[in-house]
């Protein structure tokens, strides 16, 4: 894992001091709310319906036990004893007081954490593959590149007042577990002629106008990676729309210029910037890489496990992912217990996850964009012990990537922009499918819910998506089908008129009826939808 040196620490400490000063000036009335807003946003402090929300950065989702324990302590000391893991691999606290915010940042800084640039119109926390360093199918560990970009983007003097927020994801395998092409910049580390480089996809995003990022450059040499990113950002900062906040994301610029013209401008800027000494020395990349060595895996770990306990066997089948080292696995801790709030964890649960990471996973855990937590490197022989502890703490749901593993935004329960509630709808759906025992029968089915058009819950990218809208003052839910945020990225399509809260649960069930009726061989829901199209689903829903 990356560790701060005295430079990184000094920067984070300076930021805490700066924010303490800004918050004090706000409390003293020296700053108006309008002036304070962008400053607090750049430190992750949002004003929600009932209280301030603080979003803490977890760079590329990676945490050690000490950091996870601090997150638990903060939940207890400053919030209501829990936190909420988000789709950008971060954690949010929903009940924060402005007076406490600087103290929380100071506590975080003691464990090399911060809330820098977790909101605001700047470059946000950089996300990555949650199985980085563990997945059998990756080319290299993508996190050193994410860390290099994290440092480059922190307090960037030119890019702190962009037209709109800016999200970057870095992956290094063909499989996409980070929704890479739905980011403002998606980077895939690739190999060409024995050399490593970066493919740049620019202009993806969700929100009200979802777009899949086009490929802008198929190979940027590694010693030009940061310079290329700088060129992409400069073109955006200069020419991105600022007249309308709904058209301000880079996806609109790329769309309006056309990918070809945008690329031409980037290449021109890039040629200029190559002469400006933007790129860190390769020694810096090497220094960062040294923080991500393979843990000391045992080479002879047993590969067979006792599957006689069927509940355990089900969890192993559902919640573990193949590891590059035989006898190991990545084990997913589901934060989607039936009837719970997707992504929420209590302080006690966080401490348990910290303990398990420390004891069984080389002191590492990861937050997934699906709002779950993974222990990346565990011995298969330890899986039963891990599962037993998780079960006892209510964290043993065997539902990864099933219809119970719902991504849901905070919705009307917390969010001031919401049109409809998301969390109760997620709970009703989970309950319905858990009761009927259908979850297992359906297999992989990714369902995602947003409480308004801003799409924080990724509904565009769900195999099944649900979008809350306001219909004459009543909460109404539209159903979407066929999205994907994996390597086969696709945007979901609306089925037709929306449903009320009860109706949407029935509608989801009807859609799954069509799938079960029509599926062939080992098809997933998404595969069947792609083969048969929307019509049979429409007939079942509205016929």
């Amino acid at each position, binding site marked *: 894992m990356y560790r701060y*040196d005295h*430079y*990184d620490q*000094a*920067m984070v400490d*300076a930021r805490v*001091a*700066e924010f303490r*000063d*800004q918050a004090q000036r706000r409390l003293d009335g020296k700053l108006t709310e309008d*002036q304070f807003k*962008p*400053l607090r946003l750049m430190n992750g402090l949002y004003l929600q319906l009932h209280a301030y929300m603080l979003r803490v950065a977890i760079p590329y989702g990676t945490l050690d036990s000490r950091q996870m324990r601090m997150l638990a302590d903060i939940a207890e000391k400053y919030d209501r004893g829990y936190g909420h893991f988000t789709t950008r691999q971060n954690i949010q606290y929903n009940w924060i007081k402005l007076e406490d915010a600087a103290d929380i940042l100071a506590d975080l800084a003691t464990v090399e954490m911060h809330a820098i640039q977790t909101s605001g*119109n700047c470059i946000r926390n950089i996300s990555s593959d949650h199985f980085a360093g563990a997945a059998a199918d990756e080319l290299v560990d993508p996190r050193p590149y994410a860390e290099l970009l994290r*440092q*480059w983007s*922190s*307090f*960037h*003097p*030119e*890019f*702190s*007042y*962009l*037209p709109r927020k800016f999200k970057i994801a870095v992956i290094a395998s063909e499989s996409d577990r980070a929704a890479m092409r739905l980011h403002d910049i998606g980077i895939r580390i690739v190999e060409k002629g024995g050399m490593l480089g970066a493919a740049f996809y620019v202009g993806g995003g969700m929100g009200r106008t979802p777009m899949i990022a086009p490929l802008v450059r198929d190979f940027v040499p590694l010693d030009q990676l940061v310079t290329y990113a700088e060129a992409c950002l*400069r073109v955006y*900062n*200069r020419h991105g729309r*600022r007249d309308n906040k709904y058209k301000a994301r880079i996806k609109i610029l790329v769309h309006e210029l056309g990918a070809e013209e945008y690329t031409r401008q980037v290449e021109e800027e890039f040629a*200029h910037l190559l002469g*400006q*000494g*933007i790129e*860190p*020395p390769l*020694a*810096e990349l090497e*220094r960062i890489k040294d923080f991500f060595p393979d843990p000391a895996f045992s080479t002879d770990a047993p590969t067979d496990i006792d599957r006689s306990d069927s509940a355990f066997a089900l969890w192993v089948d559902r919640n573990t992912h193949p590891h590059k080292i035989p006898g190991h696995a990545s084990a997913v801790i589901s934060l989607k217990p039936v009837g719970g709030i997707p992504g929420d964890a209590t302080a006690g649960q966080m401490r348990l996850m910290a303990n398990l990471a420390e004891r069984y996973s080389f002191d590492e855990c990861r937050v997934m964009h699906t709002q779950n937590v993974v222990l990346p490197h565990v011995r298969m022989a330890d899986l039963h012990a891990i599962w037993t502890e998780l079960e006892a703490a209510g964290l043993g749901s065997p539902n990864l990537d099933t219809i119970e593993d719902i991504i849901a935004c905070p919705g009307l329960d917390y969010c001031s922009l919401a049109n409809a509630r998301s969390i109760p709808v997620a709970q009703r759906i989970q309950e319905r499918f858990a009761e009927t025992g259908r979850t297992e029968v359906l297999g992989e089915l990714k369902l995602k819910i947003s409480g308004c058009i801003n799409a924080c819950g990724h509904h565009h990218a769900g195999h099944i998506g649900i979008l809350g809208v306001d219909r004459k003052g009543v909460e109404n839910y539209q159903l979407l089908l066929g999205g994907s945020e994996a390597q086969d990225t696709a945007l979901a399509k609306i089925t037709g008129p929306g449903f009320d809260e009860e109706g949407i649960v029935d509608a989801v069930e009807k859609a799954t009826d069509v799938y079960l009726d029509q599926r062939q061989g080992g098809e997933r829901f998404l595969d069947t939808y792609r083969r048969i199209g929307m019509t049979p689903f429409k007939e079942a829903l509205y016929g």
Partner: protein
Amino acid sequence: MAELLRFRDDEAVDHPAVTVDSFLGQSNANAVRIEPGDDARALLPHLDQVSLVEVNFPVFGDGRGYSAARILREAGYTGELRAVGDVLVDQIALMRRCGFDAFEPDKPLDDADVETALARWPHVYQPTTDGRVPIRTKRHE
């Protein structure tokens, strides 16, 4: 009226700056004012004749002026680069890094606040033309 905060020793230009359009039309002005939508690169062929570039920030959240400033400095412009308009104490450290060496805020800034803000960052991550040695270079010296 707004106070002028300057980090240069030379004499300040004392006449008003002209717009980019009129500057490009009449070649004898030496002070020009860039609005957010203007292309700073249009000035590059004429930099040797300019001693003051004002970059206007009508609202502090419009960050185009940061790019304009860097583009001018990267092209070797050494004259005064003045941020004017909605310039607040929380932005000036970043502005200094982008090459601004004068500030004419709509609302005067508190001297002590300015000093605190400029002394805030012990190090920097990115290289710019301000000459500060970035962390990634210090680490390998």
